[in-house]
């Protein structure tokens, strides 16, 4: 075991997969010689060579499309899209191609592409470096969508994603790269070395896709969340002294419906929290499933916590971010007796 932040854990996952599987290649803008703007691929080109770790032109559509071609020809490409905000030029290739190649060719062709991309706000990134577009991709049939919240899961989920024969969009909440974050920007930053999930096995292991993690078991209310909001939600519940069950989904597609529903059946109350915008957000899908599966066990209307339905404004980052106060208001609402 070693102390790793999320960047180091992701680097370790790619290092291990490059070493284990000669078909794995990395590609992306600034990822080769430079090691990536967030340093996730640092040292990997030096170690595995320029034919395994490729710098690319600034063309996300081209990156996704050539990754598809490589994948169809037997490679296992892991492409970095430098910011999730920059993924849209690749959108047609993802939605119309990557997601459907297996389906339209009746299983004769497939492209095991993993798209890694940093997402989320809280880093003074303004409207073009802060978005959480995961819900756009969960709506596309044929791609898996993953978002870890800590170094241990990040490494295991990334290895599982690379090994998966289906395409995966792997979102990395960049506010969590260096440490857990409870939503209070005024507090000193906490490094991952102080957190149990910052203890990472240096060898090969996987965290299976489609399996949620019960971060904290509890009896009074279920909080379903993922990514940056895991620690924010846990802190808000703790500050209200609620015995909350905190569920980190980790993987949005496929979704661990069993873990969600058995928890809600137990507590009867539920808050769903994500950083992404609310309207047509992934939270609506969770609410809908719970309504279908657990309606008669519910004690109160389910509450949703999300980013406001605006772009992420540079000057109002913390008014925008769904921090502890917003989660606490939802928790209070869901705990109120009828």
């Amino acid at each position, binding site marked *: 075991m070693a102390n790793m932040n999320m960047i180091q854990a992701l680097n370790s996952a790619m290092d291990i997969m490059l070493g284990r599987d000669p078909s794995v290649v990395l590609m992306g*803008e*600034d990822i080769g*010689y*430079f090691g990536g*703007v967030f340093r996730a691929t640092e040292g990997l080109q030096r170690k595995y060579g*320029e*034919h395994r770790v*490729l*710098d*690319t*032109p*600034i*063309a*996300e*559509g*081209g990156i996704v499309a050539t990754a598809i071609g490589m994948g169809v020809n037997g490679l296992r490409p892991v492409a970095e899209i430098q910011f999730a*905000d*920059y993924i*849209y*030029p690749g959108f047609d290739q993802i939605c119309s191609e990557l997601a459907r190649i297996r389906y339209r060719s009746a299983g004769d062709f497939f492209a095991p592409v993993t798209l890694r991309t940093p997402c989320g706000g809280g880093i*003074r*990134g*303004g*409207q*073009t*470096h802060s978005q959480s577009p995961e819900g756009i991709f969960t709506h596309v049939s044929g791609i898996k969508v993953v978002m870890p919240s800590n170094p241990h899961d990040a490494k295991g989920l990334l290895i599982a994603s690379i090994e998966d024969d289906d395409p995966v969009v792997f979102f990395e909440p960049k506010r969590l790269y260096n440490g857990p974050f409870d939503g*209070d920007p005024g507090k000193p930053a906490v490094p991952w070395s102080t957190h149990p999930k910052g203890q990472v096995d240096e060898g090969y292991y996987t965290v299976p896709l489609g399996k949620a993690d019960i971060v904290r078991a509890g009896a*009074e209310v279920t909080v379903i969340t993922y990514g940056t909001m895991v620690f924010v939600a846990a802190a*808000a519940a703790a*500050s*209200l*002294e*609620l015995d909350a069950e905190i569920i980190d989904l980790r993987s949005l597609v496929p979704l661990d419906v069993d873990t969600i529903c058995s928890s809600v059946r137990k507590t*009867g109350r539920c808050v769903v929290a994500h950083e992404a915008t*609310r*309207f047509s957000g992934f939270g609506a899908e969770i609410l809908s499933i719970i309504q279908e599966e657990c309606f008669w066990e519910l*004690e109160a209307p389910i509450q949703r916590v999300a980013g*406001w*339905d*605006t*772009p992420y*404004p*540079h*000057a*109002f980052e913390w*008014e*925008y971010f769904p921090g*502890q*106060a*917003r989660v*606490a*208001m939802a*928790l*209070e609402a869901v*705990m*109120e*007796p009828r």
Partner: protein
Amino acid sequence: MRLHLPRAPARPGEVPDFSYVQLSAAGAVPRPDVNARARDIGALSIDLVRVLEMSGEAVGPWNPHLDAAELQVGLRHMLLTRIFDDRMQRNQRGGKISFYIRSLGEEAVSVAQCMALRPGDMLFPSYRNQGLQIARGIALVDLMCQLLSNTRDMCKGRQLPVMYHSKAGNIFSISGNLATQFPQAVGWAMAAAIKGEDHLAASWIGEGSSAEADFHHALLFASVYQAPVILNVVNNQWAISTFQGYAGGEQRSFAARGPGYGIAGIRVDGNDFLAVYSVTQWAAERARTGAGPTLIELVTYRAAAHSTSDDPARYRAKDDHLHWPLGDPIVRLKQHLIRLGEWSEARHQALTAELEALVAAGWKEAVSFGTMSEGPRLDADLMFEDLFKEMPEHLRKQRELMRAERAAPSVERAESPMPASQGRS
């Protein structure tokens, strides 16, 4: 079979090597008629238009013969751009602004091109064209207030620093996404032609961004409709850590993409104020006389880091810009003016001091409208405005929720049990 993997000419610890840059002698490239057909002037996309000798002498058919007063204005704008950049960089390092991007070494591109255009021409800049803002006469205080996201910010706090715009100055809103403005400029120019106006559009991207599909959309639409547009690729050799070879610059010049689409392509020394001015003037005349669009490649060097978030010491040779064969655009124009007897070291020093004072005074005024940490702040309600012309109901509700959230006592400081703790089942 083996893939070709472009190599940067020099990495840290190596000697800078710019032997790959294809140069033409100053004065050597002929100046065709502005109505020449793109297919007949293909050589312009391979040669390098230069007017200023490194000695400061202006030679050849592209000399725009500007009078001394205009040259002095150009020098002033370039120097102001550089001083502004230096000061804003220091303000970022001092924690006053969150982010900054300098244009060090590329000042001639924006300043000379803006001066060669008319005020009614619409500009679609990238994030390294602050010289356009300065040459268009946008107040320094307005630029600074944007950088500060303060109460006078033209973007109302919504954009990262340097993403300016000016409706009155005919400068479009800068996007943080790359190359998106390039085909938009073509559309603007098409509209000007549809409406029968004689304003043209001009847009700028880096050579790295020319890899994006939007670059190709721009060239295609410009070619099909022969739109009155000037499309500029600022080839500053680097896209963050990635050398221009990764944008496809090794096999053919960026200007040469123009003839491939049936558009005039022209390669110019981007650090030569006179050549940049002259080439832009030529392209503008082509556009205004219906001779069609022009793709200009401005060959220059990104002397600074990509941004304040970047450290080029990790990926390129130290002080490599000092070896750049096309020199420093400010030094070159200054030498030219001195040679003409229209400038002196003493006047240069005096101008530098004057502009430094101007920037310092502007900053003092700008911070009085608030900084990120002190003074007046923008009203957070603004977050919900301007998303739609009329605010929809769901945003009104969210604005109310945000107000309630901000008025609520901090959860960490809650001393008494919350109402929620009563009546738990």
